[in-house]
């Protein structure tokens, strides 16, 4: 094995550990910290099913963002939808044809549209970057990390596109490398520069995910204003520390 391949094997395992471990850690923290009061933004659903629907519409259609600003919504939604397509398309590099997922992965819509999804991603991201630069309000609230995050993902999308349309890489060898990671039977990684750029940027993204604003993905499901059911009069809501306070002075008896 080449030294480069060994380096990437190590980096990939580290990235997966940080990504999975970091996000799990954050989710556990969000779960552990109680919401002491009922604070759904109303009108809010009165049942759990209703809340599931509210969250679904937020995740799938970005409802609230749509109400807020159409431009950010268009760019943001296109980017996320394209990201999803690109993700499914990439599955073919990490699962074998006899997997139960293969019928989905090999769908025409995933494979052909997935190919163009990269362009849609870049379109959406450039739009978001443009807003950050040209809208004075958004420019004011942006930190260097906000620009870098967009540039990082643009870099990932562009390098991915280049492998499709400019310089192709040895995809068979790449898949062997990836599958090798799963099977602990490590293989060489093709040393094309664009592939390395693409993978390195993805590794960086994985490393920073749990310590950055990318936490909005799991965080949405822990946002009390959105996930709470509107039933404070019917069901008594009490946090562990609120209960402790009560037990101490006995004034709610």
């Amino acid at each position: 094995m080449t030294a480069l391949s060994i380096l990437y094997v190590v980096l990939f395992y580290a990235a997966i550990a940080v990504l999975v471990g970091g996000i799990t850690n954050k989710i556990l923290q969000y779960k552990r910290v109680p919401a002491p009061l009922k604070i759904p933004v109303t009108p809010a659903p009165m049942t759990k099913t209703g809340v599931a629907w509210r969250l679904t519409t937020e995740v799938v259609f970005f409802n609230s963002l749509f109400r807020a600003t159409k431009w950010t919504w268009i760019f943001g939604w296109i980017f996320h939808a394209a990201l999803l397509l690109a993700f499914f398309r990439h599955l073919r590099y990490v699962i074998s044809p006899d997997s139960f997922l293969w019928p989905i992965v090999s769908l025409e819509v995933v494979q052909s549209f997935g190919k163009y999804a990269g362009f849609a991603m870049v379109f959406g991201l450039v739009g978001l970057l443009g807003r950050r630069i040209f809208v004075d309000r958004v420019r004011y609230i942006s930190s260097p990390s906000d620009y870098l995050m967009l540039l990082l993902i643009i870099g990932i999308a562009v390098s991915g596109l280049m492998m499709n349309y400019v310089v192709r890489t040895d995809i068979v060898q790449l898949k062997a490398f990836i599958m090798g990671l799963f099977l602990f039977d490590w293989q060489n990684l093709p040393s094309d520069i664009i592939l390395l750029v693409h993978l390195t940027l993805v590794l960086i993204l994985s490393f920073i995910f749990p310590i950055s604003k990318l936490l909005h993905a799991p965080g949405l499901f822990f946002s009390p204003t959105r996930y709470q059911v509107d039933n404070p009069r019917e069901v008594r809501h009490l946090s562990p520390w609120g209960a402790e306070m009560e037990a101490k002075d006995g004034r709610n008896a």
Partner: protein
Amino acid sequence: MADFEIPETHEFPVIPTVMEGVMSHSAPFLAKAQFQEQLGFPGDAGLIEGWKEVFLEKLGEMLGKYRSLLVFMDICVKCGACTDKCHYFLGTGDAKNMPVARQDLLRKVYRRYFTFAGKYFPKLVGAVDLTEEVVTEMYSYYHQCSECRRCSVFCPYGIDTAEVTMAARDILAHIGMGQKYSNEIIGKVFKIGNNLGLPEPALADTLEGLEEEVEEDIGVKVRYPLDEKGADILLVTPSADFFAEPHVDGLIGYGKVFHAAGVSWTVSSKASEAANFGLFIGNYENMREISLRIRDAAKELGVKRIIFGECGHAWRVAYSFLNTLAGPWDFLDPNYPVPQHILDFTSDCLDRGILNIDKSENDWMTLTFHDSCNVARASRIGSYPGSQFTIPRKVIKAVCNNFYDMAPETIHDATFCCGGGGGLLTDDLMELRLKGALPRMEALKNVIDDKGVTHMAAICAICKSQFTKVLPYYGMTMDQIVSVHQLVSSAIILEGQGDEDESAADTEEAA
């Protein structure tokens, strides 16, 4: 007049250009030791010794107690959706009045001391050290937020700046930077029973006076009872209802509706206040303490139900938190919601046809309705989501012939705060209050011009007080703001009422 300019109103809202620091001079008076102590806070109108450690310790504690704060500190992506949604930004153009920028005042400290990125790469992620300058800025801008939640409606993750403001204010109070206005008022509630500091004898006097006034007016003895044991209903209403216009006309209305419905009710001198400023200062303990007075009063008086009068944030605390803070309410009649909103009660009476209404009494007015932020975005009134919008309008339309809504993007859950909510209804913040009222004033002016609206009804004591103050600055008059139950009061005809008129008419005929 004020020594600053009242913003111009437009036919369509104008999003201002971002300006840095134009409102950085705005800050309410700090609470002196006497107002800090009674709430359990240290200091005397300034930073305490070792404030930095206390600040960080308190922030850490709150991150472990409030999921909202923890998650909101982490997940903002700076998309900008909220940046043009705050009435204080729209009215002042100050960059730090954009909700996300306001949150960032605390977030940048959170990042510096509680996150990996902020500890090792502060410049990259906009993290800053905790300094006196930073804290001063927080005190200023966290008192330029009325905790109205409009930003959270538009945030893709529901990030609620109100939660951040409340946490920040609580932390500030713990390092000696409590706000005089709110803290002084909470002290009065603890000592005397209400925000205005009306002691029991004065309250008894006021209510007796009301009874006489109403009897003189309509010839019917409508009761306004105080501390009556064994009454069915405990009415908890903002203390402004006991004396100020137009609030008191609302209280007269509640009494008439109760009278017509034939229920027994009472006000409590112990819980003679619906407002709960514990919400504004973001302090659970104080909010609970204030709420528990209602529990104690309900038990002492042996009532079966609790009804709240017209008040916005009070209704939020009542509807959303009372069960948590002062429950369980298993000693009350389970057939009624605890607590119930007065509009829910009146609406039900209308449905049952037990109110005799003469709508023409209100024909000289054309109404619009201001959705109060806490009712609109933090509670419900009836049995279904959105009933906080439909029930008030239904009641108004049942007692008035002329009603028009303001522009759709300024009502319901997109309603604009009056500009004086969240503990900002104080003279030391007058510039902020006037400028923050701009979006609502604009929408009101437009509906006055287009539809001939003459009056705006509201169901919140703070809204009513704030509008009474700011309407004249925008070229309108202070009496253009009315209580919803004031409208009910004018239109309702009680049994026995008008007998005199009729007999007078009879006499005339006979003559």
